[in-house]
């Protein structure tokens, strides 16, 4: 949160510009996701995986904005940021490694 700014009469001014900007960014990204969902065809393997990768990338972009600005994690002290980010990095690493090395195993056991 930015420093509180006072006007001539001593009343604190609302500082909401950055917050509304993030709202429009989130809305815009969601609109882009809709466009992708209806323009890129999943009929080919390439189109399907392109779509899935784009959705996952855009989802992470959105979550950075929500966590960074709405939950204002980027304005917190360094130790709090790492307390939250480090376990998440391990989880993502864990998922990626499992999917890469063991993902196809589910097809053999069903």
């Amino acid at each position, binding site marked *: *949160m930015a420093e*509180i700014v006072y006007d001539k009469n001593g009343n*604190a*001014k*609302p*500082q*909401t510009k950055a*917050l*509304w900007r*993030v*709202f429009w960014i*989130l*809305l815009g990204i*969601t609109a882009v*996701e*809709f466009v992708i*969902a*209806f323009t890129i*065809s*999943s*009929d080919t393997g390439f189109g399907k995986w392109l*779509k*899935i990768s784009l*959705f*996952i990338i*855009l*989802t992470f972009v*959105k*979550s950075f904005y*929500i*966590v960074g*600005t*709405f*939950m204002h994690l980027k304005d*917190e*002290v360094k*130790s*709090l940021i790492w*307390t*939250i980010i480090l*376990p*998440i990095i391990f*989880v993502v690493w864990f*998922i990626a490694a499992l999917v890469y090395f063991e*993902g196809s195993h*589910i*097809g053999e056991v*069903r």
Partner: protein
Amino acid sequence: MKVGYGKLMMWIFLLSDTFTFSALLISYGLVRFSYPSFQDLNPGVLLKDFTFSQEWWPTPEAVFEAVPFLHGISLPLVFVGIMTFILIFSSVTMVLAVEAGHRMDKADVEKWMLWTILGGVTFLGSQAWEWNHFIHGTPEGSMIDGVQFFGANLVHNQYGPTAFADFFFFITGFHGTHVLSGVVLNVLVFYNTANGVYEKRGHYDMIEKVGLYWHFVDLVWVFVFTFFYLV
């Protein structure tokens, strides 16, 4: 660490909740991947000719295409799009309430908290409608073991394998439960704000802590929206 105890513990709780939701979405992905897709079993057939069957996992566009008051018109993903908009909007009104709290502006906090509560209740109502539609199904239904079946329960569903409806109820239900507790917390802090509790206390930190939870609910929805409705 120069962080208030309550805020730190809220973050730790949200971290543990992240693990729970990750586990749910990962198992959804694993089970979905283990089932054949429509095109695996119908090579050469385009997705626009998709039909429901117990043999393959449904594509979300085919399942979620109903919108209230527009009966019988196929509008894929429109209603979940509206729900996403409602939740993002209530997230921005929440952060505006937090900002007003930093300025000790009681009237502004009350105004934005009311908008946030309205958004949360609207989202819950939308979800109730969506569940209702999902449970009762479409007029066509599907043949299951030689019997015409409409809608979904935990054992059968017209859309695809049993696991599909189970995951739908469990994941969106678990998220909806979070929204419900978020609305309860929002009403609570609104009540306290209106009674001047935080003004007397000299800070609006409670709004910020409840706000963290509310944004987390929005964050989870972003992931549920992607992995359940888009992919």
